[in-house]
């Protein structure tokens, strides 16, 4: 496809729209907090090799162990966040865990969008039998609460980062397909779609030029902001013991390792605080960042509330 839009004037109106959005975002303290948090995590993720140099660069996601005994050891000069059950270094785990979180979020959102957009646009645009089939498939997926189906898939696919991502993707695409289908059904009614058809536009042309550009924007936002809940779901899988392999740098995994050390002996109940508080804080902050941003975005982008 040619890129006919090189003229800078061309971007002006879109730019204005973005500028408006950004302005609204900046005026809301909650979204500002969200942006800051996510930016901080992004920096941590990017700088992971510097912040926590891996012992074996070919397998950077393996948390180094210092011994085999199960009792966690408190923060020390060697392990600044201490070690968790099995002597896994918490600091290394949370730093590289930020990367894992971004990878899970981005890959899952990307893959679910791809699936969701294909299925949703076919379903919404063509309607009829194929729509019926696709919607029944999504019904089947929806018939399970998300976590439950993800558990089933993850168990079946075996224990690896890939299968966690695949399992969550398989669970989340129907949502996107449904949202897109609904939006397409609306856009399809628009006269400009009919106009394009009478101009002789092919289905592919109409879908890519008219329907998707008008229907997909909200979906993109919704999907991007889902990264938080996707990471949460992945962590839940890890907690149920179905997630990534043991020793993989993943926050959910760290919390799972800490689950039995929440309360120390009665005379020192906070003895193992570092095992659960640090990974817990990381995951909470990360998800919180996305949700704060998401909440602000929804507020601004909702055309019904948006006032210009």
């Amino acid at each position, binding site marked *: 496809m040619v890129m006919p839009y090189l003229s800078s004037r061309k971007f002006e109106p879109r730019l204005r729209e973005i500028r408006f959005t950004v302005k609204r975002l900046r005026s809301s303290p909650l979204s500002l907090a969200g942006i800051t948090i996510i930016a901080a995590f992004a920096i941590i993720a990017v700088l992971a090799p510097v912040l926590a140099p891996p012992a074996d660069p070919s397998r950077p996601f393996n948390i180094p162990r210092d011994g085999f005994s199960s009792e966690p050891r408190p923060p020390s000069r060697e392990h600044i966040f201490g070690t968790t059950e099995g002597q896994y270094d918490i600091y290394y785990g949370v730093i590289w865990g930020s990367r894992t979180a971004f990878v899970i979020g981005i890959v899952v959102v990307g893959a679910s969008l791809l699936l969701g957009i294909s299925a949703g646009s076919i379903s919404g645009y063509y309607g009829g039998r194929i729509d019926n089939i696709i919607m029944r498939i999504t019904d*089947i997926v929806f*018939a399970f609460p998300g976590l439950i189906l993800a558990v089933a898939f993850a168990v*079946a696919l075996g224990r690896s980062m890939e299968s966690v991502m695949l399992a969550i993707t398989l669970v989340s695409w129907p949502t996107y397909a449904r949202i897109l289908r609904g939006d397409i059904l609306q856009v399809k009614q628009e006269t400009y779609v009919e106009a394009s058809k009478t101009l002789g536009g092919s289905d592919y042309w109409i879908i890519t030029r008219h329907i998707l550009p008008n229907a997909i924007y909200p979906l993109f936002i919704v999907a991007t902001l889902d990264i938080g809940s996707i990471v949460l779901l992945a962590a*839940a899988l890890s907690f149920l013991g179905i997630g990534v392999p043991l020793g993989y740098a993943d926050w959910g995994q760290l919390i799972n390792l800490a689950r039995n050390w929440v309360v120390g002996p009665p005379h020192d*109940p906070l003895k193992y605080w570092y095992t659960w508080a640090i990974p817990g804080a990381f995951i909470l902050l990360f*998800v919180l960042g996305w*949700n704060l941003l998401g909440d602000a975005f929804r507020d601004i982008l909702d055309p*019904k509330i948006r006032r210009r």
Partner: protein
Amino acid sequence: MSGDLRSYIIRRLLMVIPVLFGVSILIFSVVQLFNPIERAALFIRSEREAANVEGIIRKYGLDQPIHIQYFTWLSEVLRGNLGWSKVVSKPVLDALVTFLPATAELTLYAAPITILLGIYLGKKAAVHKDKAIDHATRTLAIIGWSMPTFWLAIMLLAIFYGYFGGLFPPDRLSVEASIYVQSGKFIRYTGINTIDALLNGQLWIFVDALRHLVLPTLTLVVVQVALLMRVMRSSMLEALGQGYVVAARAKGLDLKTVIDKHAGRNAMIPVATLSGLLVSGMLSGVVITETVFNYKGVGWWFVRAASQLDIPSVLGFSIFAAVLFVITNLVVDLLYAYIDPRIRLT
């Protein structure tokens, strides 16, 4: 219209059938990813039982082709036999009947609190948009929404059962209460402890059961309430921006009246839809909550079954979830049509 409505309901109910077919086929396909020996592992819990793995595979037909296994299962189901739930050593249907009341009891408390709190907070936040109270409620709700359920649950357990020496214990009943409930003097009407306790006139059992419900309910509410609050807030904002509301305020009606009479009802529509989502969210929520709090309901049963590849149980639960899902959606749609007559059932 009534004929239309009836045929709509019938159609929606008939839709359950293909969904159930799909669900069962999906599960069977997922199961096929496993080697027969892996599936036999359900029956082999210690090394000494492993010697006879061949016999177990043969006995349960685990190595038969998928369609044969499927039709065997299907014909049993059509005869009303959902199979044997190995993880809890009883028939699947029995297991459902046994564990459902616990989950029902949990949702009985969690769902209304979530809905009422969500609506209330959402309204508050919308009315005071961009004021301190808006930010505060939203921040709190978002923090709840961002909290990993299992983390929150463990924290609560640690605080209220660990530090405060058994203030809000896990499980469903304390030992004394469960002995009494088992004793035969206590008639089990519903299996829902709090209701049965009231029906039996045993206030102390009611209180005991309630104490055990506090933490799981709190967990579910904290995590779910944000969703409802957000939707309520945005639809409320939308409603407040509408012409008639502005007009009503211009007439001099005070804000409270306007909200209650004009904006509130319209803002309820998306909340009705969301209640459907809430059911699904609750079901997901109870899986983790019940696991952590040792609260023996269907969610706990499911996790156990799934992690041990107990296929009849997973299928049984899925079918239950699917039926629940379809019925919930039907109810929501009807409610929707009732709230807003403009919406046609198509």
